[in-house]
């Protein structure tokens, strides 16, 4: 119970705006619209075992949400097979099936009916969901009067409290404030431990994925490029050149004016950096003669992918020479980043034409040799400070 199998699943969508979907109205055949299409999923196969906490990782447009929709049966794959065993609950969009004129309780009751509950079971599940949502004061008010937070809370509470063997969740971060999110995470973990519920979720935030999931699949441009343990997948994801990882950023011409031929930390293979110590990035880059002002840059972002600082060759007065290959080496003598996971983003671009030509991410772990205790640290960086005490 609670397993999901995808076998060479592909999904194509029509591009552009149509006046009418005549071929879809025709009852025979596949009903796929003719004309220009894009492939959202391309030959995707994977298996989720009962009780797994499974993450779909990848950039925007990689196909994560389409997979969830195929599993949920919302949309049908163009080819391939999706099999699942057990009851499904999906939180793909907030407030699915809510009618704005009905009260929270009426909507909750109806959701319970859809989930196949009746009588006492339905009442118990609805009460449980209302209690979980913490909005019992407003439960007999039409949901159109709800704040977006109340709406999100009720949606999540219903998805979580109605019986399910497989729970599909898209972007858990969308749910409520921080305290409620914490509660959701705890509850998801509990569902998995106590009831053996299978969890399949999508999130763009590393820490959410790490907190909830143990295995997953890495999606890239509609294809599954990796599957298994979560940590190596996340590392692979961050190492993917950004231009390729995201369909949105995919270049139409294969022609690049600048490339990063190789890049690594020094010594090679280092993925551990130290607070208030130096780190060095070395790269071989190439730029064509067309590039006016070649720039090599290293951005440093924290675990939430928030940019902390960046070093740019042109700003430091280093002039790279266009039209040749060059070896670049840059050292940051004092890394102020707090201990924890971080990402180095290495970029090459032409300052005259602000288009990123090459981009590589390297996930790293920042550690501290000193007395910096993460639990006591707030903010984004750690500043050195001198202290003195007077008196007595």
């Amino acid at each position, binding site marked *: 119970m609670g397993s999901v199998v995808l076998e060479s699943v592909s999904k194509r969508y029509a591009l552009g705006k149509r006046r009418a979907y005549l071929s879809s*109205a025709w009852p025979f055949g596949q*009903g796929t619209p003719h004309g220009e299409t894009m492939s959202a999923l391309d030959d995707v196969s994977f298996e989720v075992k009962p009780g797994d906490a499974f993450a779909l990782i990848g950039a925007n447009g990689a196909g994560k949400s389409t997979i969830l929709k195929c599993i949920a049966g*919302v949309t049908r794959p163009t080819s391939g097979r999706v099999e699942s065993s057990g009851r499904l609950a999906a939180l793909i969009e907030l407030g699915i*099936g809510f009618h704005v004129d009905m009260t929270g309780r009426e909507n909750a009751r109806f959701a319970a009916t859809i989930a196949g509950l009746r009588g006492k079971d339905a009442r118990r599940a609805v009460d449980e969901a209302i209690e979980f949502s913490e909005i019992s004061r407003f439960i007999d008010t039409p949901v159109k009067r709800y704040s977006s937070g109340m709406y999100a809370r009720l949606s999540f509470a219903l998805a979580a409290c109605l019986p399910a063997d497989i729970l599909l969740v898209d972007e858990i971060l969308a749910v409520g404030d921080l305290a409620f999110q914490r509660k959701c995470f705890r509850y998801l973990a509990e569902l998995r431990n106590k009831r053996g519920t299978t969890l399949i979720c999508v999130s763009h935030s590393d820490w959410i994925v790490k907190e909830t999931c143990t295995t997953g699949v890495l999606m890239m441009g509609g294809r599954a490029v990796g599957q298994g343990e979560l940590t190596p997948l996340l590392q692979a994801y961050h190492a993917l050149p950004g231009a390729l990882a995201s369909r949105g950023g995919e270049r139409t011409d294969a022609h690049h004016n600048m490339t990063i031929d190789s890049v690594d930390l020094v010594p090679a293979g280092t993925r551990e950096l130290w607070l208030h110590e130096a780190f060095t990035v070395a790269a071989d880059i190439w730029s064509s003669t067309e590039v006016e002002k070649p720039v090599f840059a290293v951005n440093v972002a924290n675990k939430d992918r928030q940019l902390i600082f960046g070093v740019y060759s042109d700003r430091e007065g280093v002039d790279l020479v266009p039209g040749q290959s060059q070896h670049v080496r840059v050292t940051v003598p004092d890394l102020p980043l707090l201990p924890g996971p971080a990402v180095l983003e290495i970029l090459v671009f032409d300052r005259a034409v602000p288009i990123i030509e090459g981009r590589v991410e390297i996930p790293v772990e920042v550690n501290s040799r000193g007395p910096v205790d993460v639990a006591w640290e707030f903010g984004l960086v750690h500043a050195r400070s001198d202290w003195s005490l007077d008196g007595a």
Partner: protein
Amino acid sequence: MTADKQTTSVHAKPHTRMHTLVLLRSWVGRDFRIRTSQTALGSMWSLINPIVATAGFVFAFHNVAELDAGVPYATYVFPGMLLWNLFGGGFSRAMDSTAGSMHIASNANFPRLVPPVSAILLASIDLASGLVLLPIFMLAQGAEAHLAPLPILGALVGTLALTIGVGLVAAAVSIFIRDLRNLLPLVVQVAFFLTPVAYPPDSGGGNLAAVFRWNPMATFVTGFRAGFLDVSNPDGASWTRAIATAFVALGVGLWYFSRVQSRFPDVA
């Protein structure tokens, strides 16, 4: 069937009949609540509508066109119009409810058949509540009651089957081709005048008789009326044709809708 042993493809997973029926019932209740929410008169509106429409026909056909039906005119028009409203009203509401329930189509456990069918069932509740007024019309106008359960039953079952069949096709096709949302109400309007609701079936002459033969609603309306009043009932051949047409429509509607409903989310 136990859920824990079988391994089914979600797309082939049939919603169990029981589940669909339970949902149908709650959806009708839900539609009813939504329709009456924030209205002062609430369900009274399902009585006010046919009364006002009947008054309009009395004015147009009886007072202006001086039509004679052999039975007091308002009493004559009222039952036929209730039945027509089941068809016309149910038809357009089925279309609207399918288009308006796409948000819930994303719920994996929800059969998409439920909204249009329950819209039509809700229209039959309107009919039932309207029938309460019929004795009042008959008493007020001194019309003689002439009860015959069989034509009433036949007309109700036939109209329901026809409306569900035609309504499902219309609801599904109009998701893909939105022109139909504008076109089909016009077709229903024309069909209304090609059905003897506001006038007796024998008042039109030969051409109209041919139309009535192929219009099952003509038989159902005339027959429904004959179940309450002393007017002529269509012959057996008409009944057979009409009922057969209605059930063929029902079959085609169910088949077509279930065939194409999985494409709704990609288009709607």
